[in-house]
């Protein structure tokens, strides 16, 4: 075992810390959550200059050819500042799913622009029920005259308003498992209608209505009728990516709190000198550390280990349970000042509530682990 970050991972993390500290403010996070932020203008453009979207893209296709732990080191920092951009969706889910399930033509068509930062990807896979719940899809795709025609409604598509590539799941046969994942370019397709869903925080989400959206045969990612595998992979990547972001956020909340209680004085001493407050901080720190290790292990397992689904479930259960707890203790230590809109602490709480609900809620991942434990 070796718990150190590699030199590359360390480089990525420290570079990210520096860049993100300068570029991401509480106001940016607030504005994008409120739907008033124009992140696509300057902030995300500058991110794309850093080659982050192509970290996982093979070198011969214009990327950095790195592995999940390297992108993971970045996602932790990304989460620590609640950076509001489609990194998880594009660099992790988009790039890896296309790399794994795409044919040669698709790899050449989509991975270079992802690596160049010209393409923003969004998974449009949830419906009334989330994709990980394996409930049969209402959105359908029919093959007529050599083209697929998509109809139906997807929900909770992150950053969809800015995406130029959507991964859309649709049912392609009578059985519940019979679904297919399509690569849809909204710019070239008519009949896509987006409605923003107002969120408490986290990525801006949209409802995506598909009205006779036509795509060619080349738009099928993987095989027709075998989409569930690709959807499961997107969910797995999402769970690992979120856990990493949540671990980063927890670490940041611990730092903010330790800083605050060291400086806030009551009864003539720093409130951080009271044991009650110290114990809160210690509990937070232990939780954050555990989250970091479990989520790093999950990222490593995706690259090199076996049973990534199990490692991901553990990381997400841990993150889902601990981040809201860490935030609650932080609120407790901050007192009334942390209860204000102006203070950034509640942004972490709000993200925690959103993040624990996507890519598998706690009971979903618990059940996966229960099934395994009883097998």
């Amino acid at each position, binding site marked *: 075992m070796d718990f150190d970050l590699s030199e590359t991972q360390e480089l990525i993390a420290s570079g990210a810390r520096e860049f993100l500290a300068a570029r991401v403010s509480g106001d940016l996070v607030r504005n994008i959550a409120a739907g008033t932020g124009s992140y696509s203008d300057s902030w995300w453009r500058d991110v794309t200059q850093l080659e982050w979207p192509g970290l996982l893209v093979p070198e011969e296709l214009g990327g950095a050819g790195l592995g999940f732990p390297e992108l993971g080191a970045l996602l932790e920092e990304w989460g620590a500042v609640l950076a509001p951009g489609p990194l998880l969706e594009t660099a992790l889910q988009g790039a890896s799913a296309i790399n794994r399930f795409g044919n040669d033509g698709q790899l050449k068509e989509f991975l270079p622009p992802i690596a160049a930062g010209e393409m923003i990807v969004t998974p449009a896979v949830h419906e009334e029920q989330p994709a990980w*719940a394996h409930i049969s899809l209402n959105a359908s795709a029919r093959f007529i005259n050599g083209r697929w025609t998509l109809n139906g409604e997807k929900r909770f598509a992150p950053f969809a308003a800015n995406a130029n590539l959507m991964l859309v799941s649709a049912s392609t046969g009578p059985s519940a498992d019979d679904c297919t994942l399509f690569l849809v370019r909204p710019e070239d397709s008519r009949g896509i209608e987006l409605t923003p869903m*107002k969120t408490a925080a986290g990525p801006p989400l949209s409802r995506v209505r598909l009205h006779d959206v036509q795509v060619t045969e080349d738009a099928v990612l993987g095989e027709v009728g075998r989409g569930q595998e690709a959807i499961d992979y997107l969910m797995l990547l999402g769970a690992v990516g979120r856990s990493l972001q949540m671990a980063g956020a927890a670490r940041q909340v611990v730092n903010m709190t330790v800083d605050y209680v060291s400086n806030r004085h009551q*009864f003539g001493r720093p409130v951080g000198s009271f044991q009650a407050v110290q114990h809160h901080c210690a509990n937070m720190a232990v939780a954050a550390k555990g989250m970091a290790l479990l989520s790093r292990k999950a990222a490593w397992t995706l690259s090199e280990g076996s049973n990534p689904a199990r490692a991901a479930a553990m990381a997400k259960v841990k993150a889902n349970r601990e981040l809201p707890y860490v935030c609650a203790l932080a609120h*407790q230590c901050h*007192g009334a000042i942390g*209860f*204000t*809109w102006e203070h950034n602490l509640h942004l972490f*709480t709000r993200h925690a509530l959103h993040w624990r609900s996507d890519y598998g809620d706690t*009971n979903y991942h618990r059940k996966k682990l229960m099934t395994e434990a009883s097998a």
Partner: protein
Amino acid sequence: MRFDFTPEEQRFRDDLASFLNGALPPGWIGPADESRDDHWQLYIDVRRGLADRGWLTVGWPKQYGGKGVFPITSTIFAEQMAYHRAPGNDRFGTRMIGPTLIRFGTEDQKRRFLPPIARGEVQWCQGYSEPDSGSDLASIRTRAVQDGHDFIITGSKIWSTLAHRADWMFLLARTDPDAPRHKGITMFLCDVHSPGVSVKPILNMAGYHSFNEVRFDSVRVPRSQVVGGINNGWSTGLALLNFERSGIDYVGWASRTLDDIAHYARSAPDPDSSSLIYDPLFSAQLVDLKVEVESARLLTYEAAWQQGKGEASPTAASISKLAASEVNQRVHDFAVEMLGMYGPLAPGSDLAAFEGALLKLRLFYTSGTILAGSNEIQRNIIAARGLNLPRK
């Protein structure tokens, strides 16, 4: 031993519930945002309706506009109000300054200030905290200097809930800067519309305006508006806090939300069962919370019962507040979680479950463990005074 309500108590509870069902708009799921004019009007209407029936101050002695009933009835009142998420429960007037005046006020003060509270005509607010004085209340720096028959108040109060809607504020100010910290403080009643008072809104983390910063710039307050004696404000002020401190509101809020989500779960789909309510993981969490809410509820009623007998233990109120504020947070956190991806959708989103109310409550109740004496302070009290643990 008996764990049910008397027939009169039960009747009161039912009457109050049916009044509230009529007084609140159909389908009301709350919470009220008193900075909105329509919600504030509702607050005023409900408060008046309660007062007309003698319920607003049901626990006060008869001569001051109450019914002189045992505190259990006041607890039933607060629980029902919270259960309905009803605005109009004027805690600052009816539960804080009212009982304080009944105990420490002059006859003139009682005659002047109590009847308007009982009639539901005025709104009070609290001016204790300052930017540098939260848990350490005795460190307040707002000054009050005597000038003939008046005091002149200068300083800054913060976190004053409803100050933007209030007519009056009770506040603590330093009248003797040279005395030991606890001995130079006085409680005043101040007309919020006096010259020199300015109220500035602070937005809370749930996204609305519930509390304020209140500045006093040479505000004149007559000596007749001192409560409990000059330089005696520490003990008067603490007594007021003990009237305030109860977990009952949290118990009401938590029970309501548990009922809401159980109802929701009966029709919510579940990947593994016919509906979410039959999902053993979900229902195990639900019943755990029900047990904790019932436990907090009994702790709270026991505290009120002891108080009614005049033999309240020094820690009963702390225990009730501690248990209830914490389970209330757990309930609302669970509620948002069980709504899945719909839980964190904001009010105003057409797909938000419960119109986003549970999210708003989840965020708002973050404050329950901080205000009215933080839960760390309550634990200190329970450990030191309840359990007599050694101090050194």
